[in-house]
């Protein structure tokens, strides 16, 4: 099962988990990223590169499936304006082995952060500003290379 989507609409982690559980393989891992409410950011706006984004996410799904024994991968990323507490990204994996599910889930979110063409602009005090890339994200992605 491979479910890879870029969308403005919200998604339901429960629906995604249920699809992964239904694969009947024993281990399901997930990661959900949300707009944090603790740093004065009222909302984010996510821009992306249509076409390339989907291509990169599919390639990451393929790489995960080649490195770990996976029965299923869900990769959902939202774009557009997202308010405080809104879901941004979901990564879900299913495997017969818990290490495969957990590691591939971490791999997918780490590599998505540096490889997929999304850009966040945040609203603080009414004014939008572009979010700067973090060195830590590059380091987290590099440990999978």
């Amino acid at each position, binding site marked *: 099962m491979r479910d890879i989507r870029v969308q403005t609409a919200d998604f339901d982690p429960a629906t995604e988990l249920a699809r992964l559980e239904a694969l009947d393989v024993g281990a399901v891992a997930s990661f959900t*990223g949300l707009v944090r409410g603790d740093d004065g950011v009222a909302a984010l706006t*996510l*821009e*992306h*590169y249509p*076409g*390339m984004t989907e*291509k990169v996410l599919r390639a990451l799904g393929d790489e995960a499936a080649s490195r770990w024994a996976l029965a299923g991968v869900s990769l959902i*990323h939202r774009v557009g304006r997202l308010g405080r507490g809104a879901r*941004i*990204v979901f990564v879900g994996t299913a495997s017969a082995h818990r290490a495969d599910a957990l590691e591939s889930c971490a791999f997918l*979110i780490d590599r*998505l*952060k*540096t*490889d*997929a*063409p*999304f*850009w*966040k*602009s945040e609203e603080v005090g009414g004014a939008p500003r*572009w*979010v*700067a*890339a973090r060195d830590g*994200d590059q380091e987290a992605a590099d440990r999978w290379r």
Partner: protein
Amino acid sequence: MPVQILYFAKVREEVGVATEAVDVPASIATISELADWLACRSAGHAQAFANREHLRVAADQVMVTFDTPLSDGMEIAFFPPVTGG
């Protein structure tokens, strides 16, 4: 040589347009040379291309380095380091 240029995020704001179709002189062989040539188009372009370290580039929707050769009809996108997830 016709090339489709795309700009995203802060780079798009600096340049002032999201896309432009340009006809590149035959003397321009690489993406690096293309960037230098585009930088001369306006003050906004100059600003966007001033610091290569904060610029990323994709050729036909694949992340590449600036020394990549340019081909006829390529789709070249310039953008800041990505910040999704």
